[in-house]
């Protein structure tokens, strides 16, 4: 069993209250940072920790912090991205609902490091019940002098607010999130300027995922070097994995980076294997945007090495034989899963969620959905399969934000690894269109 840096106390009764949270060591990082460290020293520890953005992109958090512009007299902001919407990902919701004070602590320490005096948590609108939990916890923190003026007598002031979205996946993209926070449609902005220079209300802004901010307290308490000792290579620390799909024990697991994928899937300590005694067929390892891999390639790399839960190991082989750790949204599919239907479902999602600004994404996601729909419903043609790959290629790299790629990658990967099954949908169109139809080529136990 690995170390749990974020979730050690998640099941303690009353841990959502300030008193219990403090009894378990809560808010130590605020005392340490505000009373004994300069903001620059806090940034330095986060850099040393090797912490990488936990929302999906994996960009080093400390480096992102160091890019923040600091023009004289202009307020700057830390904005927490709690717009968790990547299909397969549900870690932030649980973390915030059960450990609201951990995020608040991270926001205080992080805001201090960045010199922000007003910070926001942008939470997806569907999670209004979690917003209520956070606001209650924030009120407790104000009452205890951990927020507001002159925090713990340090002279540092911080106001912290929670802001709800309205139902739009695109607002997880940081510039769309900022537009949304300004009360507008969530259309991503052209970059540059980057948010670090012109973000919220054109002020310098850092946007970080919930889990990234929640890792700041332990990094400050134990030191960046200690944190970096956990994990493998450039994948340091722990990661929350949202395990779902056809698993015996779906749920959220905090793992030390470096855990073998096979152990994660089959060990009773984690997912406990595939449900109903069935065989694993495929995994989407990092949220719906990342390439799907068949069983052989998720358990071992093309070179035959054990696949590990790290940024590097999961992307070994590039997109030809690898995938990405992404957000840690781990979707397992058993042998009866129809890959075409699943790919169509994801395409429908991206078409629905495209903001419509860029033609390649607005039109391309619709075309992919339409072509996949007809393949799944018995009207596909053999040339449709290459058409999908061609449309995916033309979206990639031609849009303002990464939603285009997020829509293209899963389609391209599904065709790459499961072309036989796509072809079967054309050659056996009538059978494939039956509700619950199963491609016989991958059945093992059923």
């Amino acid at each position: 069993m690995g170390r749990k840096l974020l979730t050690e106390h998640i099941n303690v009764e009353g841990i959502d209250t300030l008193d219990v949270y403090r009894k378990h060591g809560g808010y130590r990082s605020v005392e340490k940072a505000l009373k004994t460290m300069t903001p620059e020293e806090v940034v330095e520890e986060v850099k040393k920790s090797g912490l990488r953005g936990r929302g999906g992109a994996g960009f080093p958090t400390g480096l992102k912090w160091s890019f923040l512009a600091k023009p004289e007299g202009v307020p700057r902001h830390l904005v927490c991205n709690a717009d968790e919407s990547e299909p397969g990902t549900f870690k932030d919701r649980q973390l915030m609902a059960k450990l609201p004070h951990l995020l608040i602590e991270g926001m205080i320490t992080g805001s201090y490091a960045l010199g922000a005096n007003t910070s926001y948590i942008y939470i997806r609108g569907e999670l209004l019940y979690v917003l209520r939990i956070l606001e209650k916890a924030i009120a407790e923190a104000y009452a205890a002098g951990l927020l507001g003026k002159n925090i713990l007598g340090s002279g540092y002031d911080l106001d912290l607010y929670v802001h709800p979205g309205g139902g739009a996946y695109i607002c997880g993209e940081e510039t769309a999130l900022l537009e949304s926070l300004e009360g507008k449609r969530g259309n991503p902005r052209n970059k540059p300027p980057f948010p670090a220079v012109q973000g919220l209300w054109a002020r310098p802004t850092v946007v970080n995922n919930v889990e990234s901010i929640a890792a700041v307290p332990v990094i400050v308490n134990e030191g960046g070097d200690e944190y970096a000792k956990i994990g493998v290579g450039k994948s340091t620390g722990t990661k929350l994995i949202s395990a779902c799909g056809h698993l015996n024990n779906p749920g959220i697991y905090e793992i030390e980076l470096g855990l073998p994928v096979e152990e994660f899937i089959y060990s009773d300590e984690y997912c406990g294997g595939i449900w109903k005694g069935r065989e694993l067929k495929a995994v989407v390892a990092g949220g719906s945007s990342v390439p799907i891999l068949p069983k052989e390639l998720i358990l071992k790399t093309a070179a035959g090495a054990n696949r590990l839960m790290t940024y590097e190991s999961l992307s070994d082989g590039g997109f030809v034989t690898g995938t990405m750790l992404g957000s840690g949204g781990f979707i397992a599919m058993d042998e009866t899963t129809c890959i075409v239907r699943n790919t169509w479902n994801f395409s429908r999602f991206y078409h629905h969620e495209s903001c419509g600004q860029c033609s390649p994404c607005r039109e391309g996601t619709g075309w992919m959905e339409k072509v996949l729909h007809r393949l799944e419903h018995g009207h596909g043609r053999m040339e449709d399969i290459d058409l999908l790959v061609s449309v995916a290629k033309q979206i990639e790299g031609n849009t303002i934000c990464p939603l285009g790629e997020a829509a293209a990658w899963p389609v391209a990967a599904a065709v790459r690894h499961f072309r036989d099954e796509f072809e079967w949908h054309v050659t056996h169109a009538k059978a494939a269109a039956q509700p619950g139809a199963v491609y016989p080529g991958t059945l093992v136990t059923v």
Partner: protein
Amino acid sequence: MESTAVKPQFSEAAQAEIARICKQYPDDRRKSAMLPVLHIAQAEFGGWVSPEVQDLVADVLGVKPIEVYEVSSFYTMFNLKPVGRHVLEICRTGPCMLRGSDELTAQLERITGAKVGGPASEDGLFTLKEVECLAACGFAPIVQVREQYYEQLDTPAAVDAMLAELRNQVHRPALPWEENGLPNAVARN
């Protein structure tokens, strides 16, 4: 859309909540309160935001009505047409589909008589809406009703329990700034 004879007004409690929220943003950035105020409006006026209610939101925020319309039509949580007393938002995305969301949708259509995307059920109690990923994939399949998540609805008993609870819920649960919850009107078809 039929026009309301009386201009809608926020209750005093909602007005106080809106004033609290507006203080979270700089004075010259009142528009930032758009989404939170739209949520309050939807809770206050029967589960949807009519053009008149959106005009009221524009008034409160000091923006042009078009600035509200373009936002309310972009975000999927805002209902632009009247809804039944309870809006059941069924997650249809991949991980939920793997655990039976298609079957759940069919079951809810059969029991309530409402159709996804269509008008409310004949008794006015239920509107069915399919939505994308609700970030609870490990507890699939899922339905959201206002601020409540109903999880692991993969047995008839779980679905029945949810519907029974909702049938008994004439008033929606009170929000933090309210003494009592307000009812959604029973929709007229």
